[in-house]
Every structure is written in structure tokens, then in C-alpha cells.
């Protein structure tokens, strides 16, 4: 079990953890409040015009304060597009984590708790999934099915990411199941569900939490990569990866701001998530230290 108060005490004393939290939270606030915070809605056709295309950032010659970070090839405000793109990143990130934790835990529980044939089937599938890179499978899935958008990307990535949760869950359940307290609970008349929910689950939560924290960064990178390649988000959905892809075409003309700003925001977000995930892993899993 986790000593929550100890973790919190360490958390307050760790500048890295606090700094990362601030970054993630402020990006989160931007993403949630995009409709009110962003200067423009870059995907509302009425708000941008081609005559504003490729404006440099405000501090450069030719830049205006209307478009602080400049505009892209369609005349969209970069800052606004980044804010809306963050929303997509978070949506996909948390969507995948939620879905794959749920599905993975349930499958892992079933495999570990009931064993036999169903265990073998789930484990074999997991083995096969793990032998191919997640990125490749998601790309092929989306590319072959010709799906685009938030929901397809969430489904495609979750279809691969559930495996680790299932494995961890199964391993923990197997280990805990052999413990005496489970026998004791059973002899007191507790049913399967009660044993699972009040005895097995609390022991696994911290491990699942750590995996989820590490996965979140990976999922966000994955989404931006898929969108960069043109198989993730459709043109009508803001995405940092797609912004970078469209800006990349103009890089040779010396127009760097369409690529650099979304890239930096993406990098900062992932860095913060990864550092916080690392910190959590060390904190909740002292064996690795």
C-alpha cells in the first residue's frame, strides 16, 4: 500500500515535481479553457483570412500584436492553434489512458483470477502484441481502416496499450491470490467480486498509476507523430503534430515559427509529464532506486 502522506511530503519538497505539475496544469487549463483563452478559434473559417498568412511573430519585422506568435499558411493564429492543439493532445492522452487502463485491468483480472484457458488466450494475444512496436500497429490500423479523428486515434492506440496494464494486473493478482489473506477472506464467505474489489485492487493501484503516468507522455508523442504523418487527425482538427507537418513545407523558405512554437510546446509538455512520471515511479516503487 502507498503511504500517501509521505509521498505528499516528498512532493512538496521536490522542485522538479512541483515545476512539472505547474507546466502540466497550466497547459491543462489552456486546453480546457481554449474557447475563452485563445485569441481566435483557428478552426472557425470566419475568424481567419488568407490575407494574414505567414505573418512572423510580433517581435519581428512585419509582425503584429494580433498574432503574437505569427500565423501559418492559412492565416491561422499560431498561438490559438497551439492552444487548441493542446486540447487534442490531452484528450487523446487521457482518453487512451482511461480506456486502456480499464480494458487492460479487466482482462488482466480475468486472466489472473480465473486462469486456465482464458488466461492462456489473453497472454498469447498480449505476447504477440508486445512483439510489434505500438507505433507501427497504430499506424497500420489507422492507415488501413482509413479512420481519422480523436476517437479513432484513441481506439487504435488503446487497442495496443491495454497489454501492459493487463500484464501488471495479472501478475499482481497471481501473486496476491496466493497470499493467505485471500484464503482468509474466502473462508469468511467473501465472493469473487468482493475479494477483487476490496482486497486485490488496492494493492495494484499504485503500480497501474505509475504505468499510466509514464504512458501518458508516450501516447501524446504517438498522437502527434501519427498526425504528423497524416494518419491521425483530419485537417479539420487542430493537432500539434499536424501543425508541424504543415509548417515543415515552408521551412526551406525560412519560415520557422510555424514549426518551432508547436514543437517547443509539445516538447515541454512531454518533458514535464516524463519527469513527473519518473519522479512518481521512484517515489511509489522504491525497489527501482
Amino acid at each position: 500500500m502507498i503511504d500517501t502522506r509521505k509521498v505528499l511530503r516528498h512532493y512538496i519538497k521536490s522542485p522538479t515535481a512541483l515545476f512539472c505539475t505547474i507546466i502540466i496544469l497550466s497547459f491543462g487549463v489552456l486546453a480546457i479553457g481554449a474557447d475563452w483563452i485563445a485569441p481566435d478559434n483557428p478552426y472557425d473559417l470566419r475568424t481567419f483570412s488568407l490575407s494574414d498568412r505567414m505573418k512572423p511573430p510580433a517581435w519581428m519585422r512585419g509582425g503584429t500584436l494580433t498574432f503574437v506568435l505569427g500565423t501559418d499558411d492559412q492565416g491561422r493564429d499560431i498561438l490559438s492553434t497551439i492552444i487548441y492543439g493542446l486540447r487534442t493532445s490531452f484528450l487523446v492522452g487521457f482518453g487512451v489512458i482511461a480506456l486502456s487502463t480499464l480494458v487492460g485491468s479487466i482482462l488482466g483480472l480475468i486472466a489472473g483470477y480465473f486462469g486456465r484457458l482464458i488466461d492462456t488466450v489473453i497472454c498469447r494475444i498480449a505476447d504477440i502484441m508486445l512483439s510489434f512496436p505500438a507505433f507501427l500497429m497504430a499506424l497500420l490500423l489507422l492507415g488501413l481502416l482509413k479512420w481519422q479523428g480523436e476517437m479513432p486515434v484513441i481506439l487504435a492506440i488503446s487497442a495496443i496499450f491495454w497489454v501492459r496494464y493487463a500484464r501488471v494486473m495479472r501478475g499482481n493478482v497471481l501473486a496476491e491470490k496466493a497470499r493467505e489473506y485471500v484464503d482468509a477472506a474466502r473462508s469468511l464467505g467473501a465472493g469473487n467480486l468482493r475479494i477483487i474489489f476490496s482486497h486485490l485492487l488496492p494493492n495494484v493501484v499504485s503500480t497501474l498509476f505509475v504505468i499510466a503516468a509514464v504512458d501518458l507522455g508516450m501516447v501524446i508523442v504517438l498522437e502527434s507523430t501519427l498526425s504528423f504523418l497524416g494518419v491521425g487527425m483530419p485537417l479539420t482538427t487542430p493537432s500539434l503534430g499536424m501543425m508541424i507537418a504543415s509548417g515543415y513545407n515552408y521551412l526551406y523558405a525560412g519560415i520557422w515559427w510555424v514549426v518551432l512554437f508547436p514543437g517547443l510546446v509539445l516538447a515541454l509538455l512531454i518533458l514535464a509529464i516524463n519527469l513527473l512520471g519518473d519522479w512518481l515511479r521512484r517515489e511509489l516503487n522504491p525497489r527501482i532506486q
Partner: protein
Amino acid sequence: MLSYISGRILQSILVLIGVTIICFIMFQYMGDPALALAGMDATKEQLEEAARMLGLDRPLYEQYVRFLWRAVHGDFGISFMTKTPALKLVLKRMPATLELAGTAMIFATLIGGLVGVFAAVKPRFVASRLAMVGTLMGITLPTFFIGILSIYFFAILLGWLPPFGRGDVIGIGIWSTGLLTVSGLKHLILPALTLGMFQLSMSTRVIRGEMMEVLAEDYIRTARAKGLSVLMVTLRHALKNALIPFVTIAGLQLGQLIAFSIVTETVFQWPGMGNLLLMAIGQTDQPVVITYIMVIAFIFVFINLTVDLTYCLLNPRIAYD
């Protein structure tokens, strides 16, 4: 151990059969293959002719057996785009991808190994700390962003290296190599470093972690107390033991590199398999996509099998069930 090996081989074959079934279903039900082959403005007769040619009028299991039979014989259908055999298209692109992934792996292993050992032996040096921050960047930044940044700095601003393409290639039999020309090598540096950056950072961290763990062992202290030099202890006693986990992840890394070369090839317009795959996806050229999947599945199964068997030989202590 023999039963373990045969079990692994059997499992690999099952995985490959599974992949063919998935590919077969994809091919049959994603879009209309007859229409794609005959073209949009085909007449009804032409459509039927195309359907007959593809065997679509036969029962499903017969189609699958035919599909499998032809796949075993290297026939994966005709590309809708270019009307040439899909396998030939994919195989023609393979040398470019393998050279890119192989070079990236050498970068990752050599540089990662050296930096990792150094950072473990001298953890307090400024250089070691900088290297660790660098590896954090390498793990954090998405591959495509690293690629674009390196193109912007080294190709556009500084003009040191070419921004895209593969340069001049020399054909040796069926293999076309860019490794033997100056322009080919110049074109290889940026994409290979970009592709290998993640793995390089990972190897550095893994090697450093393993080395630090080994260096803290008693037998290292004993070796030092015997009067052996630091270099000797580091290389002979510590590195040897730190390498075992490293060797096993190296094989898996190659697979990751081949997969992620899709991204790098797109950024650098590298004429490899990944580039072809994205083009085929964009054009709904199913035979090429499916051929790519089969080829890549074969490569992966082969790599995984080799890694498992190597591990089995390197580390006989493991009990196999």
C-alpha cells in the same frame, strides 16, 4: 532447451499465419479490390474480369488458401498505383531502410555505450551531467521534431549536410547501397542520427544504470584492492557483466528502428519502405500495404526469434518451461 527452441519456432510460424489471416481479411473487406484494380471508369465486364482475376468469385477458404499459396511463392498481388508486383516494389525499397536502421543502430550502440560507461565511471563530471540532460532530450523530443530541427540547423542554416534524399547509390546485384559514395554517406548522417537518437539516449541510460550497479558490487572493490587499474576493472570486470542485458535489448532495438524509420523517412524523404508505405496508405494501394505488413512481420518475427535464441545461449541459467 530443445523443446523451448522448437516451441518458439512453432509460435513464430503461428504469428505469421495470424498476420496472413488479418491481411487477407483486410484485403477482402477494405474497399473493393476489383474496382481498385480495374479503375474507376471500368465497365461491368471489366469489373467482372478483374474480380475473376483476383479470384473473388471463389469460396472464402479457397481464396485464403490461394492467397497463402501465392504469398509463399512471393506473389502478393499487383500494386494498384504502378501496376507492378507489390513485393518487388517493397523489396526494392528495403536496402535503403535497412542501411538507415543499421547505421542508426551502430550510432546508438557505439555512442550510447561510450557515453554511458563514461557517465557511470565519472558521474560527477560536468560532461556526464550534460550527457544525461542530452539523453533526457533524446527520449523526450518526438523523432519528427528532432529531424526537422536538425534539417533546419545543419542543412538550411549551416549548409553542412544535405536536407533530404539518399544521394548517389551504387547497385551491387539486387542491393543498391549508398554506403560507398561520398554523397550517399553525407545524406545518411542526419537521418541516421535522428532515427537513432531515441535509442542512443536509451542505451546510454541503460548502460550507465547497469554499470553503476555493477561498479558498486563487492568484486569490483576486490579487483581494485588487488591493484588492478581503473581502466582494467571498468572494461574487463564491470563492462562484461553490464553488457548482458544490453545485448538482448539491442535486437529489439533494431525492430523499433525499422518501425520508426517510417517517420524519419518521411521527414528526410528517404526512399525506403516506410516512405512507400505512407504513399500506399495515402493512395489506398492495399496490395502494397499488405505486402509491407507481411515483410515487416517476417522481419520482426525473425528478429524476435533470434533474440530469444541468443538469450537462451548467452544465459543458460534460465529455466525454460
